[in-house]
């Protein structure tokens, strides 16, 4: 014999609750349909509630004076199955209203939206890339775009192996930049609030109002990784900390593209660059020279190390070409062992950010129950406050700290 609830109906056009002022029944009472079972009061009216069904009261929904929500169970009535006349004769089976599977708006989770992809090109009909059904399905399921994968098969056909190399090179399919070089810049007009900030900042300071954020990074894990990689590097160039920081920087820039930009304050335009060309501030006899590590986003660790060695050597010997000394989109400066506790690096205009690496040393670290020796290295990063707010700057530096403290995050999509 099913127990049917009588819910407190909305008695007054949109009221949300009502106070129980009187019971007209007790547990065990037999009621007929339409018998008054209770009185409730809203801010507009006191109302008698008639029973929906005939049967025996088996539960009361509250005490006198208690406030019940509209829709809450007022009473439970034990009815004989056939007597429950007023509910629809054939009890329509409770429609199993599962979460609607088809929701075109939200594409299935597996397909992640590529972050900071350049503006989608107009939909031109390129020739469909050549690949077998199995390979096409795998690429589709992984949320990748066939156009981005280099085919090595006959006539450029994309094989499973090609997909593997694509994935291996770039770790997570979408988070990191692909091995192919990214091109294009995105222009953002400095208007409205941003222009006001820029104007205010300029009055307040010399040409670039700097904000410097200093952070301490625990590089113990980073150094272990570097040591292990150097141990098994064979004939590859020796890894310094620079390639690792450069990799971390590229990774952080995918989430903070605004740092990888030039600010043309006359024209009032920010040129945000897709490729990451890292200026490496290098002290030479002639003075500060900034060779540029081009397309750092596309370089593997060892290639990066090799390139850095080559460039800094060329810079020191003055053989670096003009092309190798210009075009940086962001700069890293390191005083190496002399790196001091913290520095206030000056931005390499017209860039908007510069990352200073300070010296690495063992410092006591409180791990919750005692001090332990940990390898620490400070980061001193300066930002152009006209276009970078303090908050963004701090978030960016935190991102770098996290990446450097757990280096695996640099290579694996979290």
């Amino acid at each position, binding site marked *: 014999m099913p127990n049917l609830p*009588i*819910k407190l*109906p*909305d*008695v*007054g*056009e949109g009221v949300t609750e009502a106070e129980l002022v009187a019971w007209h029944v007790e547990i065990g009472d037999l009621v007929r349909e*339409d018998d008054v079972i209770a009185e409730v009061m809203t801010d*507009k*009216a*006191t*109302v*008698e*509630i*008639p*029973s*929906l069904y005939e049967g025996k009261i088996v539960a009361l929904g509250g005490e006198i004076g208690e406030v019940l929500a509209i829709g809450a169970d007022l009473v439970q009535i034990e009815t004989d199955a056939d007597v429950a*006349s*007023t*509910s*629809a*004769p054939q009890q*329509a089976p409770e429609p199993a209203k599962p979460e609607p599977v088809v929701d075109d708006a939200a594409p299935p989770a597996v397909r992640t939206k590529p972050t900071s992809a350049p503006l989608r090109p107009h939909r031109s009909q390129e020739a469909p890339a050549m690949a077998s059904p199995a390979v096409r399905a795998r690429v589709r399921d992984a949320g990748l775009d066939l156009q981005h994968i280099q085919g090595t098969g006959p006539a450029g056909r994309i094989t499973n192996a090609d997909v593997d190399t694509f994935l291996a090179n770039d770790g997570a399919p979408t988070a990191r930049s692909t091995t192919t070089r990214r091109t294009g810049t995105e222009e953002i007009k400095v208007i409205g609030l941003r222009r006001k900030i820029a104007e205010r900042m300029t009055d307040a300071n010399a040409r670039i109002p700097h904000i410097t954020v200093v952070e301490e990074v625990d590089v113990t894990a980073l150094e272990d990784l570097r040591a292990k990689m150097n141990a098994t590097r064979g004939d590859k160039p020796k890894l310094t900390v620079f390639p690792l920081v450069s990799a971390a920087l590229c990774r952080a820039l995918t989430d903070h593209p605004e740092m990888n930009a030039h600010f043309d304050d006359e024209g009032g335009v920010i040129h945000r660059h897709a490729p990451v060309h890292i200026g490496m501030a290098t002290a030479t006899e002639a003075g500060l020279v900034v060779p540029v590590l081009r397309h750092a986003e596309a370089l593997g660790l060892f290639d990066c190390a090799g390139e850095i060695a080559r460039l800094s050597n060329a810079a020191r010997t003055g053989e670096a070409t003009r092309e190798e000394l210009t075009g940086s989109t962001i700069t890293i400066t390191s005083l190496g062992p002399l790196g001091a506790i913290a520095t206030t690096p000056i931005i390499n205009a017209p860039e908007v950010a510069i990352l200073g690496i300070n010296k690495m040393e063992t410092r006591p670290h409180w791990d919750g129950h005692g001090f332990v020796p940990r390898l620490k290295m400070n980061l001193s990063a300066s930002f152009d406050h006209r276009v970078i707010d303090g908050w963004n700057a701090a978030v960016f530096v935190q991102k770098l700290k996290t990446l450097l403290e757990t280096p695996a995050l640099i290579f694996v999509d979290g």
Partner: protein
Amino acid sequence: MSKSVRLTFPQPPARPDDRPDFSEIDTGTPGALDVPPLDLTARDSRDYANGLIRVLEDDGTTKGPWADLISDQDASTLRQGLRDMLKMRAIDTRMLTAQRQGKTSFYLQCTGEEAIGCAFQRQLQKGDMNFPTYRQQSLLVAADYPLTPFLGQLYSNSYDPMQGKQLPVLHSAREYGFFTISGNLGTQYVQAVGWAMANALTGDGKIAAGWIGDGATASNDFHSALICASSYQPPVVLNIVNNQWAISTYTGVASGKARTYAARSRGYGIPALRVDGNDYLAVAAVSKWAIQRAREGYGPVAIEWVTYRAAAHSSSDDPSAYRPKDEAKAWPLGDPVERLKQHLIAINAWSEDRHVQTEAEILADVTSVQKTVEAAGTMVDPGPMSSALIFDGVYKDMPEHLRRQRQEMGV
């Protein structure tokens, strides 16, 4: 001593804690006013507009020339009138309970005013058109409108002729002379004048009847209607149902210093009469006279039906918050059902037992139809109703932008 300028804020004679006080109400005396000629002018209708036409004595007997006007109404016709009112009252009772049970979202009763709609409707011809407010559902009952669509509309289920598109109680029944009800107060009053002008222009021999509550006479469309009726003289009966209350606002706020609403209508050059709305026979007589006047081309006429809103404004209202609980019982002009019953008993055409028996039969009829209609679904357990209907009937032919939006909705 000059009187300083202070605003007045009209107050009802009694608030919740006071004793009901209808001493101001002029209850007139049955038979005191004669039946005027059909071509009555506004100027000559002063006494009718300020007085109160009554037929039934307190003891149930009838008196005066208005009684003679409807002497053709034999006992069986009056019994039908009584049944109409009882049926209306049964529907009101059952449906308020249904609302309290959550089976429908809204309901609105016309307890105490049944005689006005029921008696007026029985004087109309097929093809005449009423422009009612939401408290004249008794017109539909007296027009023998079937109960299934009537109740179906209240549950918005498959029996609802409007397929769930309208708030419950906002009926529409062109074949039964019942114009589609709008929730906006007063708008129908000037539309009735327009319809009556069409009656005249097409010569179809029909008339229109506008309906408005005492409170809504303050709306601009009351003025729109009376000025146009006065200018063009179409065949329209302009009814004002003065049931003393507009939700919680006492009728004095709408009448201001006007002596009566009927008198106010006279000001537009439209003859007006004031009638005891709870006197079934008086309502029938004056309705017969006014409808005949309109149909025979003597122009518009205004009637103030004086009655009392015995129940709450609607299912969302509790009058005990703004007036004495027992005010309804104290209404000097009594209850329309009770008074007609007394008259029928006085002329040996009825009895208390038959009354109780008839009430029970009517309640049973209404309840059984209610069960059938509820089986098709209520708000507690809604029956199938495709929401594709949203796009149906916005225009005659569905424009492309609506087709596109329905495609997006996916139903």
